[in-house]
């Protein structure tokens, strides 16, 4: 299949079951909310070494946030539900509670919840106060400018992690331009996020390594510098760079929609070829077939 001159490889992206949460950060100004969100989503590119994947989802207008102040929505995914509470407590505690004027709320109304404020409250050293407004239980933790307000628990839901596109191009600048444009277009879809810097990955990985103890290593099949001798190179003639876009989402449909939008945008911006990464289909529950997505 082709989108104009861009070839779409007949393959699929293999994605995994994860657990997703949505964190709403508000502050007196959007700038402070964004500062907390950026801090909270730092070093959260891949579960391989970061224990979670997270990124800013979108800005939220003050009239749509729980406390009527400017807000930022953050999505944070983990591989296991049991890990979610610890990840949220660590990141909210260190990156949001510390940030001036912020408050932090659950963004997924689910009966499936994990404790967050209920654990962070101990920072209050006995001076914390709980409040219940309607169905919402909040904790007020005294801090040096007033109080940090955080929801007692956060909703979690099954999610999809590891949807991906491989963008091939004739040189690094063209390929990067196409990849960046694709990533920006994919971020527009609600409920998805791209955990890597600007959404673009240059160090795609394969499972395992020749070195004992490493669970992942460079994906040599896609490294142009190894084309001469890598045993199974996937770099065709005329290709000098490949970038990966990893996309996580709260559901399968939004990931597929993001991938579709990404493929069209990358093709418009000069990608030579678009493929996707998989592990033969045995590891991940979700298979996003590129051609089916484009036909759908």
């Amino acid at each position, binding site marked *: 299949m082709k989108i104009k001159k861009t070839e779409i490889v007949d393959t699929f992206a293999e994605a995994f079951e994860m657990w997703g949460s949505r964190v709403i950060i508000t502050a*007196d100004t959007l700038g402070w909310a964004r500062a907390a969100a950026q801090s909270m989503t730092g070093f959260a590119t891949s579960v391989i070494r970061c224990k979670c994947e997270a990124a800013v989802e979108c800005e939220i207008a003050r009239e749509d946030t729980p*406390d009527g102040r400017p807000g930022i929505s953050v999505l944070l995914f983990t591989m296991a539900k049991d890990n979610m509470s610890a990840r949220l407590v660590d990141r909210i505690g260190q990156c949001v509670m510390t940030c001036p004027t912020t408050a932090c709320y659950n963004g997924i109304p689910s009966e499936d919840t994990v404790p967050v404020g209920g654990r962070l409250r101990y920072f209050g050293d006995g001076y914390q106060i709980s*409040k*219940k*407004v*309607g169905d919402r239980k909040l904790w007020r933790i005294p801090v040096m400018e007033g*109080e940090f*307000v955080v929801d007692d628990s956060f909703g979690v839901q099954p999610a999809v992690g590891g949807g991906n596109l491989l963008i091939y191009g004739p040189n690094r600048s063209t390929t990067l331009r196409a990849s960046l444009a694709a990533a920006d277009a994919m971020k527009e879809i609600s409920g998805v996020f791209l955990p890597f810097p600007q959404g673009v990955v240059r160090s795609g990985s394969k499972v395992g390594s020749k070195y004992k103890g490493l669970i992942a290593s460079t994906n040599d099949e896609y490294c142009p510098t190894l084309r001469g001798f890598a045993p199974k190179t996937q770099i065709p003639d005329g290709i000098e760079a490949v970038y990966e876009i990893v996309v996580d989402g709260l559901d399968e449909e939004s990931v597929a929609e993001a991938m579709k939008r990404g493929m069209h945008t990358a093709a418009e911006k000069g990608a030579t070829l678009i493929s996707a990464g998989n592990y033969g289909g045995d590891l991940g529950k979700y298979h996003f077939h590129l051609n089916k997505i484009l036909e759908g």
Partner: protein
Amino acid sequence: MSIKLTLRTRTNVPLEAQCINPDTVKHLSQSGVEHLEVIHGNETARLGDFFTVKGKGHDTIHVEGDTSNVKYLGAGMTQGEVIIDGDVSMHLGCAMTGGKITVKGNAGDWVGPEMSGGQIVVKGNAGHMVGSAYRGQPTGILGGEIFVHGNVKNEAGNSMRRGLIAVGGNAGDFTGVNLLAGSVIVCGEMGARAGAGMKRGTIVSFSDAEMLPTFEYACTYHPVFLRFYLKHLRDQGFDIDDRYINGRYDRWSGDSIELNRGEVLLFNR
């Protein structure tokens, strides 16, 4: 479709009509509702002796007529809705655990005593002891919400342990006296000795108040949590100006003769 109860004539002595709650009438026929027991002064009578009953088998009850001398409406209800067109007397929603009571007029003393859930809305004024503990009892309401759009008299929230009491107008003396926890929000002025003997909990007023000497000023700040309450009250039909949502409040801690973990927040003009 709902059950409509219309009081035919105003009673001169109080009528205790605890049976007027959705749990009791929901599964009864019209005749069954008419035969429910009420206390008229010191005598037992039938509901049908005073009320005209229309409809059956529904968990919404409309009460019409001059019910200003009818007590215990909605007492003990766990679900459903009671809508009262006029005024009511004492003990409205006593010990209710769920559902909603709306009074379009005024309510007497002891609104929602021993309440632990549900919602009471009084569009007019209410008397003394709103959401308070009965005398001799250690705790007042254990949960739920009481919204009085007009004024209340003394001791609103006496010994309450959980829940929310909101007053659109002024409150009398001893607002939140002996408060254990929970929140009392007064959009107007509070009378003397607000928070006397409070252990924990929150009392808020949009007006200044003279604090007891056993309360200590802590700071003037933006309480973020209060935005939730005020937005919630706005959703309930209270006229809450943005300046109260975005404004700063003086925080007083007390009562130091007790646990000293309570707070009184007074809007800072």
